């Protein structure tokens, strides 16, 4: 069964450093999502792509976060500089096309900022 791939699974960094996370969605899925999940909370949408275009990045802290999906396939989420409050699980999900369709989640990247 096809899965969403994410790497790395775990990342420890010091504050003010740059970090990057990678996501490879299920083949053929047009929509890709990045979420941040703080411990004890539900996932919070950071950015949504439809193919290579950003559909929603209203909750993305654009002063330090950036995301791209240049060829409409895999995607990278970057944080620069990282802050202590960025420690969280970063989840990637994909869906075939429409918003009401099931989202398939990757295993996530757990980030710890020291």
């Amino acid at each position, binding site marked *: 069964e096809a899965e969403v791939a994410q790497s790395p699974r775990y990342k420890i960094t010091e504050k003010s450093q740059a970090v990057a996370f990678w996501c490879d969605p299920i083949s053929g899925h047009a929509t890709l999502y990045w979420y941040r999940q703080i411990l004890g909370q539900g996932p919070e*949408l950071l950015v949504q792509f439809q193919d290579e275009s950003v559909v929603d990045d209203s909750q993305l802290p654009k002063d330090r976060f950036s995301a791209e999906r240049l060829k409409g396939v895999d995607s990278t989420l970057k944080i620069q500089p990282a802050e202590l409050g960025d420690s969280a699980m970063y*989840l990637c999900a994909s869906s075939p096309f429409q918003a009401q369709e099931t*989202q398939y989640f990757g295993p996530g990247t757990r980030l710890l900022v020291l």
Partner: protein
Amino acid sequence: AQSVTQLDSHVSVSEGTPVLLRCNYSSSVSVYLFWYVQYPNQGLQLLLKYLSGSTLVKGINGFEAEFNKSQTSFHLRKPSVHISDTAEYFCAVITDDKIIFGKGTRLHILP
């Protein structure tokens, strides 16, 4: 603003007994409703979803949920839980093409 409220942050029940996980949402327009499960250090997995039609939805692992429009609820239940159901459960709502997750309910199954 739309919101999703999971009324219990933690639920503990004994193995073999029924469980009810409650979810209420605020929306005056059409919604799509989902329940996801998250096992430790893993991503979320879909349990079931309501898009339209029958208000009683059956999902994987013996779970079911009932959509109640008048009460704006989508409670999840299972008649007899197993130790492997220990996980965190998230209710989610899609409205206006935006998805909102609840804060989750941590389910602990006692042997």
